[in-house]
């Protein structure tokens, strides 16, 4: 009955390069139907940026869509193992007051799990496809 993080995560992490534009990050979120993308710098994980980050850290600050997305990232990410129970992810989110965790498998980022993924797994909307 205990679901694993891998069962509810959004697999195949979607990333953008630190120097790609804010507009490119927005289009990546749109085209993949996701609310967050990983930010990669020199082939290493640098941080994570959400659709809301683009709004409150770029649009609200008069940054243009051609500026690099990297500086908008949240850093110091907290990861969770793909084989952990979803309860572990919930506990980590609560402890660190974050809503998304990179999911680690064999030392690589295998996906992202969000508070929405976890709620969806438990709630009556699970079958509506809303996320």
């Amino acid at each position, binding site marked *: 009955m205990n679901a694993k993080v891998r069962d509810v995560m959004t697999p195949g992490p979607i990333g953008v390069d630190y120097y790609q534009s804010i507009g490119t990050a927005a289009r990546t*979120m749109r085209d993949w139907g996701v609310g967050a993308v990983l930010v990669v710098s020199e082939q290493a994980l640098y941080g994570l940026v959400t659709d809301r980050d683009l*709004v409150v850290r770029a*649009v*609200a600050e008069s940054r243009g869509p051609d500026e690099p997305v990297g500086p908008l990232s949240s850093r110091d990410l907290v990861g969770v193992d793909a084989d952990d129970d979803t309860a572990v992810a919930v506990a980590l989110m609560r402890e660190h007051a*974050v809503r*998304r965790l990179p999911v680690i498998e064999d030392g690589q980022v295998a996906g992202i799990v969000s508070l929405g993924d976890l*709620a969806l797994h438990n709630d009556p909307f699970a079958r509506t496809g809303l996320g």
Partner: protein
Amino acid sequence: MTRKVREIMSAAPVCMAASESVSAAAMAMKERGIGTVLVLSGGRFSGLVTDRDITIRVLAEDRDPRTTCLGDICGSELAVLSPDDDVEAATRIVRDRAVRRLAVIADGTPVGVVSIGDLALDQDRRSALPQIPAPAPNR
């Protein structure tokens, strides 16, 4: 047992005129720590705009947030709730229309917003999920 929309909604919604810019809405979202603004046209509710709408309909489309107005991007979903509606009614509309947020209107005045999160939360008040604070901006 039957709960009303007024018990679960986020009250005192931020309302902005359709003629205001997307930039102004983004600043309001940042300062107020919210993700949704209700859009008024001629003083009447005409739709809502979320932080994600700004990402998808403005940034991804290379539109200028300073010159794009809220009326240009606000959703056409006009289903609204009354504060006296049952929570079940809200759940049904959210499900049937595949929307994530609904405006709550009383006597023509916007009085709140109900999100899918509010509904899920009401459904499972024992869940640990509601206890996770929503940082702004969310990570």
